[in-house]
């Protein structure tokens, strides 16, 4: 009997706006 395939794990992603905020935050932090 073939084993049933595992369900795929949903990878959570930030929204595009959240990514932009994170980039701004990193830019401010960097020397």
């Amino acid at each position, binding site marked *: 009997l073939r084993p049933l395939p595992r369900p795929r*794990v*949903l990878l959570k992603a930030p929204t*595009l706006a959240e990514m932009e905020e994170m980039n701004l935050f990193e830019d401010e932090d960097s020397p």
Partner: protein
Amino acid sequence: RQVTVQRKEKDFEGMLEYYKEDEALLVRMLISDMKPQDVSATVPCLPAYILFMCIRHADYINDDQKVHSLLTSTINAIKKLLKKNSEDFEMTSFWLANTSRLLHCLKQYSGEEAFMTQNTPKQNEHCLKNFDLAEYRQVLSDLSIQIYQQLVRIAEGMLQPMIVSAMLESGSLTGVKPLGYRNRSSSVDCDSGTPSSYTLEVLIKQLGQFYTLMSDHGLDPEIIQQVVRQLFYCINAVSLNNLLLRKDVCSWSTGMQLRYNISQMEEWLRGRNLHQREVMITIEPLIQAAQLLQVKKKTSQDAEAICSMCNILSMHQIVKILNLYTPLNEFEERVTVSFIRDIQNLLQGRTENNQLLVDTKHTFPVLFPYTPSALSLETMHIPASLNLDFLVRV
């Protein structure tokens, strides 16, 4: 006894392995430093396929951090590149094509049945095994919309200076230009002539360059059509607004030249299989304005014919054009006040917006229909010129 163990060559399964430390190099070579010319001789959207094959391998080895990291770096690098090239049509078109292709790959190989209907058995084998990337698909979809908006903004900005001159002021029809306008050159090219004078040929040539670039980059035909529709809307809006504000272009001869110019643009559309209703409806107001300049404007029958013909123009616009209409040749007559009143009486029942000018800032919402690829990942060849030899074929 000597035993020979035969080496069995493993087939390429359409995955690309890389060390985590090489991620920054991968993103730099494939995105930040990539020029469209570097991949012009390869399959369109090769960078997207390469990125997807790297994602596939990270999925295959069940490394969620690697998938997160690569997708995040990819999205950030594309955004940064497009910000740096915010006025570059070619670069924007190239990355619109690649971003939407990467999105299609994430759908086609997601393992979701709705996206697999056109897959070959080999393509089904290549579906992602461990991770559901639906949320990243949403991010890429939002990014694609942003890139599309940048693309049309750049293209509109390049066309805007040409539109009035090309559509209303320059003319190639002999004998059409009335006295006083005939000394204007009709063959001034933007390269050699004054910056303010563009011919229709120059405008159409620019549209052709946009179309060729987008096609060469492998942008989906449905998206190309939406870009063309938006540009034709812009041409209609700028031309019609100019007509509605200038007495000197509201004449029979302008109407004639305009109709000829529009027919040339229709030919251009037909030559590229773009002559669809969605595109033509955007320039219908300008077509009706050109017809209005040419038809008879004397009797009540003429008024009825105009009201029936100009079903897209508003009453406000029709009345304005009639008021501005300037007879220039001996066979033309000024439009009488009573004729304009006839038109207003015939149209008073119409429900329409009262605006005179067309909104030049309007952009149509864009749709990105799903377009799976017929190419199979294991057939992809990466040229050595891309300097990606640190990627291992798996």
